[in-house]
């Protein structure tokens, strides 16, 4: 029976959406050139899945491995990965992670694809993989789609999340563990005991697995179980090569990097082009001393284009916000975290308003979803929350700022938000809803529906002419 992995996803997605998969045979360098291709597509507002077949490494040598990007950076692909829809993917993501966790299974090492190749000691060379240098002020190649895995020393429960990793040498990675993250908490616990923390990065897996593993969860809670929930099958795990039999890694990952972080030691890392679309400043970050690299035959390296027009982080936040708001305002219909807020800072909440006060309750609830959530706009159900224009139109025509604005100073904020003072931010929201029924409000424009259905463009104008008409500038 085949198990969900990156290769299964790539084959399936290309079969169903060949128009959205691009394979580039021409040689490109990991140093900015692959990122330039991604940036050109972002400028076109397109996010195709791209496979770089021939990549030159940071050393100027041709890598034996391929590199894939844009696996996660598109809401439609996320929906495809978990058999959901554009509108429902965030809520379904949250629901499966909360209510349908599946315990992983452990398989023998000789059955694990990720053990097809094993490198240890001075045979390890991270720089032979096509690890990309993305933006102009990055100091070198960065692991961006690596699932940073560690364990809570008190309970032995796994913790997993994307954490950027600067590949500072063939066997050295410096990883940013920002304050408030569970990985940072685990490291603190280890350091207080004077112990090294065992860690792994695993790279390249089915996006359903990555979505589940990256889910924002309570602490401690197993992300491996959430990964199984999203994939709707148990995640196959296998014991590590150098970190002990109790340190488990995904058996079907393309690449697994094992290592240890020694207590109290930090080194320079960054700046790095972050999700905010700014360079996050240089940090003193923990150092992973790599102890083993295991990988599949013909491994595919997965890179995440941080800071480009993706909505992976936003889609994840939506599910969390929806479940929190639903508890206090059951009239919530949908939530969207647009790329205009870097996927984390803005939330648009659509409600079916029945009473005054509900929008402000929704704002207050949504602002607690994460330290990153900063601005919340609540609109009525006739507003398309997936289009910034109509949300701002609601703000323009349904809010008065002397009574519809909420401002809350002194909140915990996102460290990478360049506008905040230290880690303290000001959060807020706008009630851009009409008065609750039975009150009436000015009527929104409409052309009678029966006429809209009767009069179709294609009956009066050649399709080519419709297609070639330039889009409005203000789009």
């Amino acid at each position, binding site marked *: 029976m085949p198990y969900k992995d990156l290769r299964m996803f790539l084959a399936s997605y290309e079969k169903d959406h060949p128009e959205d998969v691009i394979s580039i045979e021409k040689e490109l360098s990991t140093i900015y050139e692959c990122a330039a291709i991604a940036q050109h597509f972002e400028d076109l507002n397109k996010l195709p899945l791209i496979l770089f077949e021939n990549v030159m490494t940071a050393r100027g040598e041709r890598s034996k491995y391929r590199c894939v990007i844009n696996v996660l950076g598109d809401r439609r692909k996320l929906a495809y990965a978990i058999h959901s829809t554009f509108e429902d993917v965030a809520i379904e993501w949250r629901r499966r992670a909360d209510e349908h966790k599946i315990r992983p299974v452990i398989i023998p090492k000789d059955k694990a694809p990720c053990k097809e190749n094993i490198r240890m000691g001075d045979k390890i060379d991270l720089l032979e993989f096509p690890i990309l240098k993305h933006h102009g*002020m990055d*100091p*070198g190649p960065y692991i961006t789609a690596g699932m940073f895995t560690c364990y809570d020393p008190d309970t032995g429960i796994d913790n997993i999340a994307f954490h950027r990793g600067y590949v500072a040498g063939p066997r050295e990675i410096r990883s940013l563990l920002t304050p408030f993250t569970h990985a940072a908490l685990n490291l603190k616990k280890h350091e207080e005991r004077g112990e090294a923390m065992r860690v792994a990065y695993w790279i390249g897996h089915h996006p359903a697995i990555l979505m589940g593993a990256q889910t924002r969860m309570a602490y401690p809670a197993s992300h491996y179980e959430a990964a199984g929930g999203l994939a709707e099958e148990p995640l196959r795990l296998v014991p590590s090569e150098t970190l002990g039999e109790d340190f488990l890694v995904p058996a079907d990952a393309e690449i697994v990097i094992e290592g240890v972080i020694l207590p109290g030691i930090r080194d320079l890392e960054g700046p790095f082009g972050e999700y905010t679309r700014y*360079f996050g*400043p240089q940090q003193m970050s923990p150092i992973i001393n790599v102890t083993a690299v295991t990988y599949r035959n013909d491994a595919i390296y997965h890179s995440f284009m941080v800071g480009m027009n993706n909505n992976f982080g936003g889609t994840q936040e939506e599910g969390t916000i929806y479940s929190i708001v639903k508890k206090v305002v059951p009239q919530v219909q949908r939530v969207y975290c647009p790329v205009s807020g870097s996927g984390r800072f803005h939330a648009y909440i659509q409600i079916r308003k029945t009473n005054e006060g509900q929008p402000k309750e929704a704002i207050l609830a949504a602002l607690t979803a994460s330290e990153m959530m900063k601005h919340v706009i609540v609109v009525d159900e006739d507003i398309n929350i997936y289009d910034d224009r109509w949300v701002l139109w609601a703000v323009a025509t349904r809010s008065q700022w002397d009574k519809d604005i909420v401002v809350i100073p002194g909140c915990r904020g996102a460290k990478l938000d360049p506008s*905040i003072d230290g880690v303290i931010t000001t959060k807020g929201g706008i009630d851009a809803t009409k008065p609750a029924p039975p009150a009436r409000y000015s009527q929104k424009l409409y052309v009678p529906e029966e006429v809209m259905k009767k009069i179709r463009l294609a009956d009066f104008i050649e399709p080519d002419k419709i297609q070639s008409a330039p889009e409005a500038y203000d789009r």
Partner: protein
Amino acid sequence: MAKEIWFKCSKCGKESYCDIYFDKIPDAEVMCPFCLHRMKLKEVRVSFS
């Protein structure tokens, strides 16, 4: 509301920045992200005042 400390590499002359907490690290070093040269922050800090 400064979030970063800007510095100018003493080797390649390019400017970059580190986190504001580097001010609290005694004798902090920084690394130029362009040429990877390491230097003392206090010697290469850019003042905007």
